């Protein structure tokens, strides 16, 4: 009897323990699921930008193609009008959200621009969906932090080269570009810079490209500049890629950039490679279209630890070694190619390209102030130019 009671007692003790254990497991799983879910939802939260006082208007990409409304590709468009009439420039960041220099340069423009003549339209997150995920197996950090002018930490998202797979699953085996019929690998279906001139009833990426082309058409954009960042071993690097109609202005800008000590390669837009912004907007719209590449170790295959430090400093021992072996397309100093250099180059180039346009075609002049030049970004850092 005594034995039985103790046995019962024992059993019930075991049950409570098991119950506790499974409750604990459930709790852990619950927390994990909740954390992952929060993380997932968090990736869709758009970090706020603080436009300069001279912002004239904010619009949305869906204003140019209504089917983008309530999709992850709808995004803010910042319009800055000058007092004097002139031309219109469209500047894109975040075509590839894994290339922070392009995105951050566009943000610096939005937060500092004061347009004096003509008009500037900035889209900092051209492929907004691609900001909602990083690339599988690349180990990119999801965010990085810069300290703003007033000491406020500013968090910026790193995304993927491609539209989020959840916004376009599954990829076809091959991607057939519209309208050329050019065939690329299936995942390029989600690459905004392979989707131009876009298609109003196409995939989300094609519709995004179409809406951007619509801005160019409806707003009579004269100049398009798309801001990027690429691997130091990639041949088209530290480069200005221009459509043949834009070569004149691009070449003058390159000479002026050389005068301030910045070397850029002038690369003609390949005539037979379709989907690229400079080729298709150059061919299908009246704008002079070009693309700027800066060099970042984050983009490369040789990189080591892929963390926030690499995003900001772009300093990597493997790249230093590759440079020593002469395997890179750009100089890669041991101190890396920090964000200041990449953003500074972009901003100086944007300024001098606009100046070139203004010199060559005064009726299309786009002139602005308050945007830091290369030296100012190097001296004060990128954060100083953020609110």
């Amino acid at each position, binding site marked *: 009897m005594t034995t039985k009671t103790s046995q019962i007692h024992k059993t019930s003790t075991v049950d409570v323990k098991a119950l506790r254990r499974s409750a604990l497991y459930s709790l852990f799983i619950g927390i994990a699921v909740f954390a992952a879910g929060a993380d997932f939802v968090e990736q869709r939260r758009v970090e706020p930008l603080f436009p300069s006082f001279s912002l004239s208007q904010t619009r949305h990409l869906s204003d140019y193609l209504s089917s983008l409304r309530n999709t992850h590709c709808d995004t803010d468009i910042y319009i800055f009008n000058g007092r004097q009439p002139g031309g219109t420039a469209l500047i894109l960041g975040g075509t590839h959200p894994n290339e922070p220099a392009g995105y951050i340069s566009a943000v610096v423009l939005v937060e500092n621009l004061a347009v004096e003549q003509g008009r500037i339209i900035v889209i900092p997150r051209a492929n907004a969906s691609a900001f909602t995920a990083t690339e599988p197996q690349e180990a990119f950090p999801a965010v990085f932090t810069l300290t703003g002018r007033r000491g406020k930490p500013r968090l910026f998202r790193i995304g993927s080269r491609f539209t989020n797979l959840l916004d376009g699953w599954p990829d076809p085996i091959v991607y057939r570009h519209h309208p050329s019929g050019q065939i690329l690998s299936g995942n390029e279906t989600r690459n905004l810079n392979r989707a131009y001139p876009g298609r109003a009833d196409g995939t989300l990426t094609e519709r995004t490209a179409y809406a951007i082309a619509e801005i160019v058409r409806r707003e009579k954009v004269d100049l398009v500049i798309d801001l990027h960042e690429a691997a130091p071993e990639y041949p088209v690097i530290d480069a200005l890629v221009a459509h043949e109609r834009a*070569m004149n202005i691009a070449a*003058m800008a390159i*000479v002026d950039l050389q005068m301030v000590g910045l070397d850029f390669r002038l690369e003609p837009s*390949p005539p037979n490679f379709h989907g690229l912004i400079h080729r298709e907007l150059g061919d299908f719209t009246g704008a002079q279209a070009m693309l700027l590449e800066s060099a970042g170790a984050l983009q490369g295959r040789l990189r080591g630890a892929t963390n926030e430090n690499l995003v900001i400093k772009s300093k990597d021992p493997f790249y230093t070694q590759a440079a020593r072996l002469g395997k890179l397309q750009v100089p890669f100093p041991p101190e890396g190619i920090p964000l200041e250099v990449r953003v500074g180059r972009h901003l100086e180039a944007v300024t001098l390209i606009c100046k070139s346009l203004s010199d060559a075609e005064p009726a299309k002049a786009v002139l602005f102030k308050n945007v830091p030049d290369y030296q100012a970004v190097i001296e004060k850092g990128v954060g100083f130019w953020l609110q």
Partner: protein
Amino acid sequence: MNYTKYSIGSSSLQLSIILFCTAIGLLLSPAYGFSEDSVRVKTYLQPVLLTSAGQAADVMILRGLALRAGLDIKYRPNATADSLNDVKAVILVAGGSSKGLGAAKIDVKDEESRIKKLVKAAEKAKLPVLVFHIGGEARRGALSDPFNKLAADAGELIIVIKGGDDDGMFKKIAAERKAAYRSVDKQIALVDVLKEIFPKAEAKP
């Protein structure tokens, strides 16, 4: 002109004067063989026809540099003999580009034949041909070198940006043809070079 290399550093005044006079004498002597770095200031008249040999974008850069140097240039990407009517010199920017040829829808053979005809016509019209190779190593190799050679074979002055003549091809052609040869460090330095060889040009602000 850079006289600094002949500067007077000796304590002996007499020796200095002798050296100085010798230097001046050598510089003024037409028979003197100039070294690669010394500056032979043969000058040319404007307007200048600017065209490419190989359709590389370098010609656009040179156009920009020439504009910043204040040159009166006539840029004709597909210049022919007819383009020579109103100019006093010809600049050929050497280097091939498949993208450039593709964009202009010109094949290599046509481009080569255009350059040959243009050079012949310039010779006939007694117009000086100046050759610029400004694209560095990227404008050497299988596609570019036939254009580079065609151009260099016609130039009375060959100017190469560093990196474009590591194997000495241009230098050798220049020596064989007794053409002037200059190696320049950076593209942007060509603004001053252009001002120097086209002295009537006034720099634009």
